[in-house]
């Protein structure tokens, strides 16, 4: 390279084209872009396309798939009560996010968005669960909810009732998962709201105050409308996040008892991968993919149109 450059001035007629190819814009594109394209194609797009293909086969993952079964995997999945339950459970995650988690996050954000030392301390505490690994959060809570050892055991003993195992109770096991999800994620949504609230111009709030708006009035008519974009984004994260819940469930209930607490992803893992039913698992992956894309597209259409 150095040689080319020193000769460049003397022999520009030859050097210029070489310089253009090696160090010009095209050369940069040819050198800098392929690593990303190759990695992405190999480990994201190719497996994704694989899902779309294998979903129509009955295949254990060895050799090439030959046993074409059409939509049988999808039909079987739709008819499987554990799958139906997993969809209901994932919808429950969305519902709890919208009804409990986000209002709680918003309330807390309104209480501590001002920059004071004590608010900063609370902010750090509330955000702490978010940075812990989900698997650790699940394990911690499986201790708390252990009927023989945990805090739940303390409570039942204090009340003088029999030990209670919430994670082995068919009708309440998934509620345990929901509690952990709220515990883990409300701080994240609170942070989004805090960042947005801090961006609301102070004069707007003061102007509303001078015109006689009450504290609640300011919140309802100034602050919440002003942070609407943040709320839209946080709802989107909740919905997309609900489709991905996996780690938390494994240590808590592992999908049990009697497959009552699966999410779509734990269902995929248990009935697809753990049994090496690649075809069946791929079909679940395809359904998950379609759900995620539908959510993204509809959401963008409905709320995220940029003001022209």
């Amino acid at each position, binding site marked *: 390279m150095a040689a080319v450059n020193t000769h460049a001035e003397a022999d520009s007629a030859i050097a210029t084209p070489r*310089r253009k190819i090696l160090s010009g814009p095209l050369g940069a594109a040819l050198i800098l872009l392929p690593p990303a394209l190759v990695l992405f194609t190999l480990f994201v797009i190719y*497996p994704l396309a694989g899902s779309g293909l294998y979903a129509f086969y009955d295949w254990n993952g060895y050799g090439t798939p030959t046993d074409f079964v059409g939509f049988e995997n999808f039909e079987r999945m739709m008819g499987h009560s554990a799958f139906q339950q997993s969809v209901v459970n994932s919808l429950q995650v969305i519902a709890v996010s919208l009804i409990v988690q986000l209002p709680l996050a918003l309330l807390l954000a309104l209480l501590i968005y001002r920059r004071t030392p004590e608010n900063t301390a*609370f902010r750090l505490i509330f955000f702490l669960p978010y940075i*812990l*690994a989900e698997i650790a959060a699940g394990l911690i809570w499986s201790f708390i909810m252990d009927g023989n050892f945990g805090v739940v055991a303390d409570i039942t003993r204090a009340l003088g009732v029999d030990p209670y195992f919430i994670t082995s109770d068919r009708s309440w096991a998934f509620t345990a998962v929901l509690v952990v999800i709220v515990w883990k994620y409300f701080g994240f949504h609170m942070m989004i709201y805090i960042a947005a609230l801090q961006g609301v111009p102070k004069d707007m709030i003061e102007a509303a105050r001078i015109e006689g708006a009450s504290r609640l009035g300011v919140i309802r008519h100034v602050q919440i409308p002003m942070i609407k*974009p943040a709320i839209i984004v946080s709802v989107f994260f909740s919905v997309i996040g609900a489709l991905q819940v*996996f780690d938390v469930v494994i240590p808590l209930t592992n999908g049990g008892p009697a497959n009552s607490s699966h999410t779509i992803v734990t269902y995929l893992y248990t009935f697809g991968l753990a049994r090496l039913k690649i075809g069946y698992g791929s079909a679940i992956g395809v359904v998950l993919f379609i759900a995620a894309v539908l959510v993204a597209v509809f959401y963008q259409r409905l709320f995220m149109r940029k003001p022209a």
Partner: protein
Amino acid sequence: MTRSNILREIIRVGFLCIVASFVLGPLAATVLGGFKSNTEIQTSALSLPEIWRFDIYADILSDPGFWRYLGNSLIISVATVVLTLLVGSAAAYVFAQVRFFGSKMLFSYLSLGLMFPFATAILPLFVQVRDLGLLDTYWAVILPQTAFGLSLAILLFRTFFSELPKELFEAAYVEGCSYIRFFWQFTLPLSTPILATVGVFVFVQSWNNFLLPLVVLNSREAFTWPLGMMQYRGEFSVEWNRTLAFVTLTILPAVVFFVAAQKYIVAGLTGGAVKG
């Protein structure tokens, strides 16, 4: 007037403290549990230990397996960060700096990863990693993690790069600086804030990842700490104090890291969201 203000403040702080105890209670029980005997945990989960036992923590800290899990996680996370930053910023630089036919299309292509959950393609990914002979190697986790993280990284880098002053590039180009040298010498050094944000974000994600290692790592030698932790839990299922000590020791680095890097973590998680 003032009295109602004080009352309001008491209610506010009281409510905040209730929520704080909901957050901290389980964590406190976990840390303290590692100092207790099992019989004591059984009689009271939340109290301070009657006798502080240090042997459980010491046991785990002197177990080479524990350090092996942490080491594996560290190697995988650092490699994922380095690879994501390098590959992602190189591609983003092209999108920000070079105009060429198909640039928009390729950018949309690389953004597809933002659209769907990782789990969607996990089964074919497992098959492919196996067929490439990568099962039980660090690469089995590093490469897919990097590939899936690229979409967000490229998006963030491109935005940042295109906001760098254009005059700088023009001046350097006139001076004979090549596109690639400009990338190394100017773009990357000027972009440390976004590199740090993306790097921290990628690191935390990799450090906490469970599903992918679970699928592609089978031997204990290659286990990352989340897998090691579940293994440990399985082995000592009746001895909660051991599991709790293990959990404490693994979340401790995360907490320290968080306090040190919170500026970047919070910026990375909320910055894009609020702007978007």
